[in-house]
């Protein structure tokens, strides 16, 4: 801080942000944004890190958007801009994955989102898809 007032040892402490910086971590405890919930709501949706999330263009109750919290709205805006994975949403919204999962659960339940689950391990993609991936990687 380069304030000109605090130049002597007895000078008054500047009233601003000397007590915290990026190193101090978030000032709001992460799960405060979810009302203390650490798991998604009654629907029990467990979002995989690579589950792809799309905004529903035609939500059943669009009026409910007005009462969404700021973090819910941020996530919704990100999903509207582009289909994103849960991991990307977490990074882009700068929120821990656990928090994002709870918030996405809310949005899913109120019909603002749709989610595509990744392929379960028992049915890994067929040879044609794998071939496509290999060719795609080589062509990058």
């Amino acid at each position: 801080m380069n304030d000109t007032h605090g130049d002597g040892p007895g000078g008054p402490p500047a009233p601003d942000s000397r007590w915290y910086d990026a190193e101090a971590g978030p000032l709001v405890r992460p799960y405060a944004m979810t009302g203390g919930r650490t798991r998604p709501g009654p629907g029990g949706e467990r979002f995989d890190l690579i589950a792809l999330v799309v905004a529903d263009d035609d939500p059943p109750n669009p009026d409910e958007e007005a009462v969404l919290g700021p973090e819910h709205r941020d996530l919704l805006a990100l999903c509207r801009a582009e289909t994103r994975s849960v991991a990307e949403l977490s990074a882009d919204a700068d929120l821990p994955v656990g928090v994002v999962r709870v918030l996405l659960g809310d949005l899913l339940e109120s019909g603002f989102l749709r989610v595509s689950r990744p392929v379960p391990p028992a049915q890994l993609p067929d040879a044609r898809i794998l071939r496509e991936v290999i060719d795609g990687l080589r062509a990058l």
Partner: protein
Amino acid sequence: MAYEPSDRTGADDGADALALKILVAGGFGVGKTTLVGSVSEIRPLRTEETLSRAGELVDDTGGVDRKTTTTVAMDFGRITIRAGLSLYLFGTPGQDRFWFLWDELSQGALGAVVLADTRRLEDCFPAVDYFEHRKIPFVVAVNCFEGARSYREQEVSRALDLDQGTPVVLCDARDRDSGKEVLVRVVEYAGRMHTARHLDTVG
């Protein structure tokens, strides 16, 4: 509602998109983030998982340099093969106490890369064990650091006591083409393993 892609032909709108996952594991400082960064089309992103299972932290007294922390960061990258088909890469957290995160990460993973440094080969033992036990197809990619003596694939394979057929590739994690080739090997091997298992269950 959540659903799976029901029809893979012409499925390229968002909700029917297919996402595949490859994990990048290995010891601390072996180049996991570098590898993810060299092949990813987006700058490697970091996401944090908050540990809600505080008990996981208690029994680790292994090292003095380990920070006590409540979040763990994961690096990841993305490669879009085409509209509706993308590959996600996740660098697994290096510290042992985050094993439970590996369980989540490895669920549904197509395969894995175990990055190895021949100067500290033992650092990748836990990752090799982990993937072998869970039958997740993996390749060992030896990151060829300058100044490290070079070994042949067979020597590394023997030193790690790998199951027969587990591919070993030499690579330079900083080099995009080299990183791509490592991923190609993972996808090829995963395909072979999957076909073999399928035949096992059928016949």
